[in-house]
């Protein structure tokens, strides 16, 4: 519709309406469904791909075990802190599995599991939280950006990277993860806006786990859903049950494919729940009830999938046992390797500040070297 046809333009003395303005797209296709999309437990589950679902099952079981092991490591002092994704495994793992090799994952500080599911060695994924070097891996090796602590700040990185890849003609999709709280940051807004204007191949995955540390969603936004934020950027918004790994897989895959095909970015809100405290250092009883947590237990992502697959005969007791054994093996390996003290070289403090050390840094490095030598002598 052009503005020439606008209602009210009839009166004869009226000037032709301004020609430069017109609605750029229709809002309707951008609006999310009013309820989270689901597959498990619905007729849509009839079309599940057994092999894929068995793979997801194994990953979910492994992810759950990874979470438990990481939390145990905090109690043993082997990790300084761990933000658990128990209850969020479906979203974490689907985010990793829908990507192709050349794609990039931009995890938030919470998303070590997604990084591990993409193939990163768990020990490398955990260096930040263990207290040894900030980023324990080469981001280019697995195309996983550094775990990002300042919330939402990695979202514009994802946009820039995806845009750069597109400019170079590479079919790369960037998937960026953020929490419900992170959507309030200015960087969230700017990233989504740039992505939409540039039609960058990015998928924004918001895990709405109900809380930003202690702050519930109702104090974070008054929007109908977080997925509705897509409208304001002119990109499609999708609402999905984040505990339903089959639904996550479908919705993410669709968004990744649209991005890869040049269809631009998508905002996805995965409705989920953080079953444990914010981190091991947090006390969740201060801000939420046991009843709420209990209610969500009945909607556990691992169990949802297990029930669906066993009911459909896709998974049997042996399959379950196999997944659990593999998970135990991963945990044992992780435990063992994390029990070894990492060896850090204090001189590394100065090695990577710049490509070439400044004179001032050389001086400081010499100071530290002398101190270390004096210590060694003593």
């Amino acid at each position, binding site marked *: 519709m052009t503005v020439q046809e606008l209602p009210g333009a009839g009166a004869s003395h009226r000037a032709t309406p301004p020609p430069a303005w017109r609605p750029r797209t229709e809002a309707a296709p951008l609006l999310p469904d009013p309820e989270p999309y689901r597959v498990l437990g619905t007729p849509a589950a009839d079309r599940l791909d057994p092999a894929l679902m068995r793979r997801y099952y194994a990953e979910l079981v492994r992810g759950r075990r990874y979470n438990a092991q990481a939390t145990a490591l905090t109690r043993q002092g082997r990790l300084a802190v761990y933000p658990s994704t128990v209850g969020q495994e479906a979203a974490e793992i689907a985010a990793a599995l829908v990507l192709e090799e050349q794609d990039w994952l931009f995890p938030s500080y919470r998303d070590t599991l997604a990084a591990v599911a993409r193939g990163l060695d768990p020990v490398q994924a955990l260096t930040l939280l263990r207290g040894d070097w900030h980023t324990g891996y080469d981001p280019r090796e697995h195309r996983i950006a550094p775990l990002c602590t300042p919330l939402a700040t990695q979202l514009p990185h994802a946009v820039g990277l995806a845009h750069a890849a597109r400019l170079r003609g590479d079919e790369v999709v960037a998937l960026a993860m953020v929490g419900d709280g992170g959507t309030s940051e200015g960087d969230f807004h700017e990233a989504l806006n740039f992505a939409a204007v540039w039609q960058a191949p990015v998928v924004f995955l918001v895990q709405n786990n109900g809380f930003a540390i202690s702050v519930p969603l109702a104090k974070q936004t008054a929007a109908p859903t977080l997925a509705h934020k897509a409208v304001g950027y002119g990109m499609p918004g999708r609402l999905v049950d984040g505990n339903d790994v089959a639904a996550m897989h479908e919705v993410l895959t669709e968004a990744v494919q649209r991005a890869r095909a040049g269809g631009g970015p998508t905002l996805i809100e995965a409705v989920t729940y953080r079953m444990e405290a914010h981190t091991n250092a947090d006390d969740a009883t201060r801000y939420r009830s046991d009843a709420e947590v209990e209610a969500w237990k009945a909607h556990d992502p691992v169990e949802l999938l297990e029930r669906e697959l066993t009911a459909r005969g896709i998974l049997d007791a042996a399959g379950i046992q196999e997944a659990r054994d593999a998970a135990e093996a991963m945990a044992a390996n992780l435990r063992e390797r994390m029990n070894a003290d990492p060896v850090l070289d204090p001189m590394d403090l*100065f090695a990577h500040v710049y490509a070439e050390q400044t004179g001032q840094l050389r001086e400081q490095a010499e100071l530290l070297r002398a101190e270390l030598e004096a210590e060694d002598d003593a």
Partner: protein
Amino acid sequence: MSTVAEQAVKPATMAQALTRAMRDAMAEDPTVHVMGEDVGALGGVFRITDGLAKEFGEDRVTDTPLAEAGILGTAVGMAMYGLRPVVEMQFDAFAYPAFEQLISHVAKMRNRTRGAMPLPITIRVPYGGGIGGVEHHCDSSEAYYVATPGLHVVTPATVEDAYGLLRASIASDDPVVFLEPKRLYWSKAAWSPESPASVPGIGKALVRRTGASATLITYGPSLPVCLEAAEAAREEGWDLEVVDLRSLVPFDEDTVVASVRRTGRAVVVHEAGGFGGPGAEIAARVMERCFHHLEAPVLRVTGFDIPYPPPMLEKHHLPGVDRILDAVARLQWEN
């Protein structure tokens, strides 16, 4: 609330003193509001606002959306309407998103309006390292604040000062960046909120230890380290004076200069990086004012000029007793 007698005998932590300062300010003045991420039911990630929401309600102790520029920006508007917001930034590096609001508005509003619109905002920032925090949780960002005219920059090093300086900051008609040394949160002292008389408002440094050989100039998290170094220095035959700045802006030049003129030697100690850090200003100023009294250049012992290290390496970065004593040893004693 506990009685005076109880308070007087029980040791309190710096965290408790800070909480108590906000509580007392809020009880006295209904325009004082506390806002930030997780300051309500949780009481803040360091529990510094513990109990305030319960006592004063959510309208005065507000869990905001997660957006630091929004927090400080709305605080500006609240102050424009006559409130006294006390804003909590969750960690040092998470104050950066609010920099534009801080620099372009908070620091400039009084000046811009020729005094018509002062902004009595207190911005509490837990800062510094030494607690095993991961990156972005241990920055000493005072250089940025110090270089911004229009801001006061205050940092306590003792339990008593934590209370007194925070009260003074909230009472100030100007914006105050109130830097809380994280690793001193759990430091203790026998302290009662009924006797904060020794804090004469913002802008007075204090000689924490008198000495004749040289002056250590420091503040915040480095004060205990300097006092320890001064103790250790006695073995080497040095009698060190220790000055606690307590406020970086205003900077109490007179107290510092008087001390250095007396001792003739000085070392500035802080966790923030040295290059362009607050110690540069102090050293430059001391040399300017004490030139003919100095037996040696003013030296600095600071954090290295590197991004804050991972927890397992932070001990090598932080100014410690040995590094301070090494600097003291370089003060040209043989001249």
